[in-house]
């Protein structure tokens, strides 16, 4: 559809959101439409802006810890992980090996939980009701496991500067192993109900193709980037924590369409399970928390730390000025960049495809607005 052929009076605007079932939160997309064809989707951000960066600059770094989980409530632990690692790097705090292993295990569990929720939510966008409840069923087991050691179910505040706040026990190890076994059995259900389903494939295949070039241009990261065939994963490319000790693959797609992004996430779940298994097998003994000075001094100069969150590269950038309060804290969240390509991607497509594309991005709006 060429834009010049559309008469001016045939164009109209449609507000998708901020209260629309498939914008996953308070995101507004102003759609310029011609019939059911979207001519120009324009995301409008900022409905849930809470000034997290400014809060981080106005209180000692310990005080900002709980806030990091609130940015991305679906996958909170990698956010904690990034922030504690940043401060540890800046202040030169040593972390016991066991603590790093526990961090990796819990982060990966959280990643699986996030992907399970996404799987259901994406299918909900496509009109299938049942997968989300199956996803919740599995996710609930992860939340139970995590609740048992962290004490909360969603916005964990489990990591501490220099370790984690509570050691894991045999019950945790047992429950995690049982869960891994269970999820591997459940793959069959997801495959039959979703992955192989012809209607699902038709709704996702060749929809919203992000070329590798475009993905790099917009700074897309995470499964969305890997769906386009670029094997870029912070865990492999800029290894942090104890990730280099584990053997895992970085699944990539071929075409960069919604189906590839779906497949990448599904295969990533299996890789996460592999990491957890290896970590549980090689779990070292020792303390889980090192001695940390009461008042952490952030030396002058800047510091950056990036982790792989469930949605892509999450990077904290901090400038210290010698006090305990960061002079500047900048958080680069994956969903913001991932969403930015929607405008280019969404030109000249049908409204249901736009819903499918937005679903496949795995957006978490509070993370974008933060």
């Amino acid at each position: 559809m060429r834009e010049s052929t559309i008469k001016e009076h045939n164009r109209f605007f449609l507000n998708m959101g901020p209260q629309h079932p498939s914008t996953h939160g308070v995101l507004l997309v102003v759609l310029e439409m011609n019939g059911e064809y979207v001519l120009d989707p324009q995301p409008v951000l900022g409905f849930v802006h809470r000034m997290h960066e400014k809060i981080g600059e106005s209180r000692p770094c310990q005080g900002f810890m709980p806030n990091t989980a609130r940015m991305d409530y679906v996958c909170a632990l990698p956010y904690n992980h990034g922030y504690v690692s940043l401060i540890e790097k800046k202040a030169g705090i040593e972390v016991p090996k066991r603590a790093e292993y526990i961090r990796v295990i819990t982060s990966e569990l959280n990643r699986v939980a996030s992907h399970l929720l996404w799987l259901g939510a994406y299918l909900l966008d496509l009109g299938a009701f049942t997968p989300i409840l199956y996803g919740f069923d599995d996710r609930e087991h992860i939340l139970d496991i995590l609740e048992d050691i962290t004490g909360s179910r969603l916005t964990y505040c489990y990591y501490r500067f220099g370790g984690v706040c509570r050691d894991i026990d045999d019950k945790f190890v047992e429950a995690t192993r049982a869960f891994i076994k269970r999820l591997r059995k459940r793959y069959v259900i997801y495959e039959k109900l979703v992955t192989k389903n012809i209607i699902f494939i038709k709704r996702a295949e060749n929809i919203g193709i992000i070329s590798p070039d475009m993905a790099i241009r917009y700074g897309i990261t995470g499964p969305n980037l890997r769906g386009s065939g670029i094997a870029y994963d912070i865990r492999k490319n800029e290894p942090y924590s104890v990730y280099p000790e584990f053997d895992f693959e970085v699944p990539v797609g071929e075409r960069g369409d919604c189906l590839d992004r779906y497949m990448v996430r599904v295969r990533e779940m299996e890789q996460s399970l592999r990491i957890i298994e290896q970590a549980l097998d090689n779990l070292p003994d020792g303390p889980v928390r090192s001695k940390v000075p009461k008042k952490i001094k952030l030396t002058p100069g800047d510091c950056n730390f990036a982790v792989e969150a469930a949605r892509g590269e999450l990077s904290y950038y901090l400038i210290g000025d010698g006090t305990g309060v960061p002079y500047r804290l900048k958080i680069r969240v994956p969903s913001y960049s991932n969403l930015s390509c929607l405008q280019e991607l969404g030109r000249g497509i049908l409204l249901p495809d736009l819903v499918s594309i937005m679903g496949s991005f795995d957006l978490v709006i509070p993370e974008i607005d933060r």
Partner: protein
Amino acid sequence: MKRYFLDLFIGGKSLVDGLVVTTKALFQPIVTVQYPREEIDITPNFRGHIDLVLDPEKNTFRCIACGMCQRSCPSECIQIEGKKVEGKKKKTLGLFALDFTKCSLCGTCVEVCPTQALEFSKEYNLADFSKEAFHYDILKRLEERII
């Protein structure tokens, strides 16, 4: 032409497979809990809002009203006041108020406490109609537990 029929066959089979999954699920036991009717055991590690520890020996709180928790709280939701008691040198706890609407359950207060006077409560049935219902008087909650 071959593609046309192949699509139909593979597609039809996938649809039947999906239906088999849901039909099986129809006869499987349910996994949900009928919440207000039945409750599951909450993990002992659950972190609810804070409570004062009841010292079994002294049958009272351990808090010395030093104010560490108040100062370390990132959300400034704890308010402590000490009061003078006749015949004692040190101040004793007069008020321990928690504004739970601001609390983010980070647990810093429990960790910094020099006398281990704080613990997490196991309460999770927290719903009310007013904000004020979540302004807890922790000291009063403890006194109710003292027999």
